[in-house]
């Protein structure tokens, strides 16, 4: 058992740090949940991609560096410690790309991945529907067979980044009326500017359009944009969901950097006699370290060939609650100034509030933990 990086991994860290020191903008771009900020974040993605830093874990042929999990974790630590901008392409990179690597065709990968890596095409997810949230398999949006492809009909919602994104991916019911709701679903990619698509941005808690509703009225999707076999969409999507909940979307680097900033804020502004607040700061710092080490252990197992299992539900509950605790503690530390909406802590707080809800609510995660990890009997939800 060890936590030592190889000389090659240390060299990779040094290279990443040097690049970031030189390129991270001194003034952060505007919030990516605005039109102006979205455009600025695309420019940043292009800058990253130009030196192959936008998708380090991908194969070189698609713009990556073939980084293994340890190197990816190292990169993320450096990225967030450097205070680099949020990743506008995250939905595509973390959710769609792993699905394409696992279930896509070579043609799809060659067509989709390079423009994703540069931020030229930004992807939104289209999972939830007004009547299908935690019970995603009850979704009703249809994919109807037509010449050379499919026609999408229905209503998707809570689609992150869709207000400004270019394309989207999601699940549609291609064979209605089957006995089991998980059957007869198809995983498709579609253009958010195609005829028949209406995007209605939704303001999140602070009013910024972080997600959108999608109204789909006979939107044509060619066969080449189906991922995996028609009807097998649930199985295809679940590999993506495992990624979203588990390692790839929430790297420890983000929480470690936030915990460092919180500890610095405590040293600068904390009232030493406020021991209750000091305990919360300590718990946040310890929690970030615990998440980092848990992830190293998880990565070590994956590198030995084990898959991502239900353990990712432990991750999801932990990081989402840690993220919220970190930001709530910072706002309390800032005192009356904490409500100032233009601060990084406030923006981070609003972002963190969504964590326990998206990617499978924490209640669903606890059900999964109880039933699949502890072996407790199923009951009514």
């Amino acid at each position, binding site marked *: *058992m*060890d*936590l*030592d*990086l190889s000389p090659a*991994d240390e060299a990779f860290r040094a290279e990443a*740090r040097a690049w970031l020191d030189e390129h991270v903008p001194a003034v952060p771009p505007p919030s990516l949940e605005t039109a102006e900020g979205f455009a600025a974040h695309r420019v940043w993605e292009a800058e990253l991609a130009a030196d192959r830093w936008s998708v380090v874990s991908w194969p070189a042929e698609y713009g990556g560096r073939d980084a293994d999990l340890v190197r990816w974790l*190292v990169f993320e*630590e*450096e990225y*967030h*410690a450097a205070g680099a901008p949020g990743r506008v392409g995250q939905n595509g990179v973390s959710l769609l790309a792993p699905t394409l690597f696992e279930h896509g065709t070579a043609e799809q990968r060659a067509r989709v991945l390079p423009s994703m890596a540069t931020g030229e095409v930004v992807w939104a997810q289209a999972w939830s529907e007004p009547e299908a949230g935690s019970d995603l398999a009850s979704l009703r949006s249809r994919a109807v067979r037509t010449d050379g492809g499919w026609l999408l009909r229905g209503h998707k919602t809570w689609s992150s980044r869709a207000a400004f994104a270019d394309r989207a991916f999601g699940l549609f019911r291609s064979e209605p009326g089957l006995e089991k709701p998980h059957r007869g679903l198809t995983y498709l990619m579609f253009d958010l500017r195609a005829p028949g698509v209406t995007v209605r941005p939704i303001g999140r808690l602070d009013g910024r359009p972080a997600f959108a509703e999608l109204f789909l009225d006979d939107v044509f999707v060619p066969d080449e944009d189906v991922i995996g076999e028609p009807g097998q969409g649930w199985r295809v999507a679940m590999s993506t969901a495992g990624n979203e909940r588990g390692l790839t979307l929430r790297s420890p*680097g983000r929480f*470690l*950097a936030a*915990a*460092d900033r919180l*500890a610095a804020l*405590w040293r600068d502004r904390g009232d*030493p006699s406020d*021991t209750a607040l*000091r*305990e919360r700061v*300590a*718990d946040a*710092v*310890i*929690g*970030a*370290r*615990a998440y*980092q*080490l*848990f992830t*190293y*252990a998880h*990565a*070590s*197992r994956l*590198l*030995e060939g084990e898959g991502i299992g239900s353990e990712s539900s*432990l991750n999801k*509950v*932990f990081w989402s609650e840690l993220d919220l605790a970190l930001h709530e503690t910072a706002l309390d530390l800032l005192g009356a100034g904490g409500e100032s909406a233009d601060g990084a802590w406030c923006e981070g707080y609003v972002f963190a509030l969504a964590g326990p809800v998206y990617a499978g609510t924490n*209640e669903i*995660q*606890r*059900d999964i*933990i*109880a*039933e699949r*990890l*502890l*072996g*407790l*009997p*199923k*009951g*009514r*939800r």
Partner: protein
Amino acid sequence: MRFLLDTEQRAFAASLDAMLGSADTPAAVRAWAGGDHVPGRALWSRLAEAGVFALAVPEAYEGLGPLPVDLAVAFVELGRHAVPGPVVETVAAAALLGGLSALGEPGPAERLLPDLASGKSPATLLLPDPAESSPRSGTADPAALSGGHALDADAAAVSLVVDGDGLWLAAGHGPVRASLDPARRLARPDSGGELLAAGPGVARAALRALAWARLATAAQALGVGLALLGRTVEYAGRRTQFGVPVASFQAVKHRLADALIALEFARPLLFGAALSMAPADVAAAKVTACEAAYGTARTALQLHGAIGYTAEYDLSLWFTKARALRSAWGTPAVCRAEALAGLSGGGRPRS
């Protein structure tokens, strides 16, 4: 990097688990609580044969160590089976003597360590209060570290007391007081006795002993928590009300899920601390494992209902230990303060 136990370490854990599982450990715990050390000492000898105490003892003194990762592996199993006796204190005493030897004072180590390693001499230890050992915390209760007692001094063959710059071998102990955990017996070593060593090295060695004590306590607490969770999962799956197992109710499931999350995130802190033995890492592991274990104990008590609230039901052996360990060798407040003072993000080493 490979942050996983190796095959041998896993086999070591499994063999200790099997040995303690077949040794009627609960009976030894209850005997120990009543002042009968015979079954507990028999268990102690078997643990020593398996090499548990030697892990804290350098090879020069007939030990196998120091091997903090393996020690943590062993102490998780000791906690899982609620093993009685001054197990943590023996390890801490060994770390102190080994530390003194490394600082150029080998006499006490030569004399005492081989018998600690072999299991012949269970040891206990009283360190000065944490206000001296962790000056940064600023909030330490003078009695928080040990309450002025040395655990199981009545059963220990060696009672060490650090008093300022002096290390003493106590000749006896005061009256035995009961603990909330009946298997923990509290007594104050008599002052004076034989002076084993003196000088600034004693205080430095005492800090090393404190780190080992916290690491072993963290591991023990994790094991206690895992046992409480396992027993509660089993009970809630078996106990039926309203015609179904109570474990099928979401309110029950979610409490158990939260207990597992807390324990599984304490585990990497424990082994990370064992690798570095840095005081902040050890303090973080100690507070996190003890909080996780105690939270699990509360869940276990609640989900067992009234049967869990009885002394005759074995759950009490773990519940009371979880409570006692939480305050032993550094309260949550002291450990949080040390962790905050010393932990950085870790990803970007500080220059």
